[in-house]
């Protein structure tokens, strides 16, 4: 199967993709329950761009580079570096649940993928699975980084419309402003090739909320 990078980006960013991702709010529900005012959602999206999104995008980009270079054995190192930058167990677990879902789809759509071969069937975080698919199917590095950023903001925006409804177009605008904010970081992430170089910015408040969320009663989203 030969697809353009554009088509792949559209596919992977599509919320209709059957990969079990509709159960997450990217921490927005946890943030709101933790006391964040809904009108701060745009700042929340941008804060993620400067922290967790850089870690995720960097992980995906480096995985892509290693797979493209045939250095499959070094993917394990990427995973370790991602884990070290994701200290919250709750955040690791949801990233792996989403990675499992994406890998399941990837194995069926592209049976020749490493995801159906030498890589384990379960337990890879989503950015790592994205990186593998990007390398194998031809999603360009710049598109991959922006995919991670766009998907992150749109997930928050869609969850916001369920949790604190507002004019839906306003949420779209906020998501795009967050994507624009990410543009300042995109060039430096896109060129990464070494696992140790993955950005290591953390969002301690996001991590704390994520942990608290796991024990909340009556939550609408899993994370």
């Amino acid at each position, binding site marked *: 199967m030969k697809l353009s990078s554009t088509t792949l980006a559209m596919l992977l960013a599509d919320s209709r993709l*059957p*990969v*079990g991702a*509709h*159960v*997450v*709010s990217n921490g927005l529900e946890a943030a709101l329950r933790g006391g964040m005012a809904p009108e701060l959602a745009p700042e929340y999206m941008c804060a993620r761009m400067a922290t967790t999104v850089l870690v995720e995008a960097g992980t995906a980009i480096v995985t892509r580079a290693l797979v493209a270079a045939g250095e499959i054995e070094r*993917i*394990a*190192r990427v*995973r*370790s570096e991602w884990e070290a930058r994701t200290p919250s167990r709750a955040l690791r677990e949801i990233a*792996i*649940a989403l990675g*499992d*879902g994406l890998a*399941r*789809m990837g194995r069926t759509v592209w049976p020749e993928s490493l995801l159906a071969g030498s*890589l*384990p*069937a*379960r*337990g*890879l975080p989503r950015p790592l699975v994205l990186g593998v698919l990007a390398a194998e199917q031809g999603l360009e590095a710049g598109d991959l980084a922006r995919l991670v950023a766009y998907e992150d903001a749109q997930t928050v925006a869609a969850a916001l419309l*369920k949790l604190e409804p507002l004019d839906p177009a306003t949420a779209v605008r906020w998501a795009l402003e967050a994507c624009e904010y990410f543009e300042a970081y995109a060039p430096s992430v896109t060129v990464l090739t070494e696992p140790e170089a993955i950005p290591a910015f953390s969002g301690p408040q996001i991590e704390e909320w994520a942990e608290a969320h796991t024990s*909340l*009663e*009556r*939550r*609408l*989203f*899993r994370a």
Partner: protein
Amino acid sequence: MPDTLSPEVAPDTAETNRSLRLGIAGPVGVGKSSLIATICRALADELQIGVITNDIYTDEDARFLRSAGVLDPERIRAVETGACPHTAIRDDVTANLFAVEELERDFAPLDLVLVESGGDNLTATFSPALIDAQLFVLDVAGGGDVARKGGPGIGRADLLIVNKTDLAPYVGVDVEQMVADATAAREGGPVLALARDDEKAIAELRSWLLELLATHRAGQHVPQDPGPMAPHFHADENGGYIHSHEGEHAH
């Protein structure tokens, strides 16, 4: 610590330990969770059973079932549906498939896995990609006319349960009529009137399930999709016909 890609869970072995996967769908409050408790009580002595619940809010149904004491609590697991219970059983079954496979692996060999849908509406049915057969549950307290209204689950689930028949005198519903309406809506498909303490009906349910399991094990059971729409009537000059959208068809 050395870098490793070994997953935090063991690889799937689901295909070697494949259970009969049975979906339980129906609107909110019709007694899906208590029906699962009834099935467990009726069959737990002879079958290895697991349960997956789908909740809109966290794991309330799972907690109800665990507290009912009908099954080892570890065999009851909850899938969170992110406010989309319909999606999680039909157009994106990913999370439920993982949950079923993990349960089958952790308690292999399981005979039967019951998957309870989050209470939704009359149009919510399971995808055959997730389950092998499905029950659709209504109750008399929801109104005697609901069966007549139809819908894919009412029309074509493998078995329709009319639950809480013991309440019929209190809500003014004629159970026989409701069952007759349901049978007509299903074009003769099976309908079972049930109450929690109705031993005869529970025995019928038990036989139906065991027969289904035998057919499944013999490789003769083919999962059927109730479809997204009910069969419905078209008037035409020959007097009209009922059809069920199995082929291509534009209105």
